[in-house]
């Protein structure tokens, strides 16, 4: 073998090893993780009850009145913070007759006890933390203002509570 052939052989060995060193493929994996929380459920549990109202005499039901205040029961992910927003009527209605309602008050509690509920202002909304079992109770009170010539009848309206994470 002559000098030129030996040098060529060495150069070929160099290129072969270099090529082998370059042709490498490798891979690795990581995980993606998430924990989906319990969905929120809101149910109307008790109506806001003004009972008998007399023309010209305003009547108030406080949010702390466990018997007559309106109440919703909320369930969701334990110990989660939730946002509360209310849709409030301006009047109760009986046929074509309107009975003004205003001065809404509210309260939240992780147990079914309106008297010890934390106060909120329904017109502004608020937030609260669900209990360790994912429960929350929300109350609403208000004042109706019948006119001196308010027609007699049964007046009703809807109050809506929206709860979100």
């Amino acid at each position: 073998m002559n000098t030129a052939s030996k040098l060529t052989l060495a150069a070929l060995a160099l290129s072969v090893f270099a090529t082998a060193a370059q042709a490498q493929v490798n891979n690795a994996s990581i995980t993606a993780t998430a924990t989906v929380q319990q969905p929120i459920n809101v149910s109307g549990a008790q109506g806001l009850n003004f009972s008998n109202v007399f023309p010209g005499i305003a009547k108030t039901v406080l949010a702390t009145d466990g018997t007559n205040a309106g109440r919703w029961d909320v369930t969701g992910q334990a110990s989660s913070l939730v946002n509360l927003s209310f849709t409030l009527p301006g009047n109760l209605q009986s046929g074509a007759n309107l009975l003004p309602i205003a001065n809404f008050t509210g309260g939240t509690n992780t147990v079914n006890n309106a008297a010890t509920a934390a106060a909120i202002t329904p017109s502004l909304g608020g937030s609260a933390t669900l209990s360790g079992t994912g429960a929350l109770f929300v109350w609403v009170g208000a004042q109706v203002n019948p006119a001196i010539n308010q027609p007699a009848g049964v007046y009703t309206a809807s109050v809506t509570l929206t709860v979100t994470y």
Partner: protein
Amino acid sequence: MNRSLLPLLLVLLSGTTRLDAQGRPLTVSGVRSLVFGAVFPGVPRTISRTDPANSGQFDLTGNKNSQVRLVFTLPAAMAGPVGATMPLAFGGGDAGYSDTQAIGSQVAFDPKQPFLATLNKNGRGSVFIGGTAQPGSSQRAGPYTGTLTLTVAYFP
């Protein structure tokens, strides 16, 4: 054989062996999982590739200043309880490469497309990835997981 050529050939061969030992194997390792944490039904949750705690991270080692080709294998959904699945989306800027291995210094790229990167002078680099979990409004509660794979190769 010409004796004067023999030492030269030995030098060349030994040089070949030494070069092979200096060529580092190309490796990739998973450093950190992509963590979405608490996810609420109906509320998408996005993790940025620049999130130092929750973004996914891979570290690369190989030949210094070498160009490498990065290819992700991404899940379309995460698997959860009782066969539930939760869609997982990756946007055009949800991956990033850093030759300084610093999360604050990345070149963004689309993880759904191959990407060419250059290892630094020490033969290192890092890849970061974020994404968006898309729970439905009635998504079943519980833990969900998925697997992201990064394949690397010298290029060319």
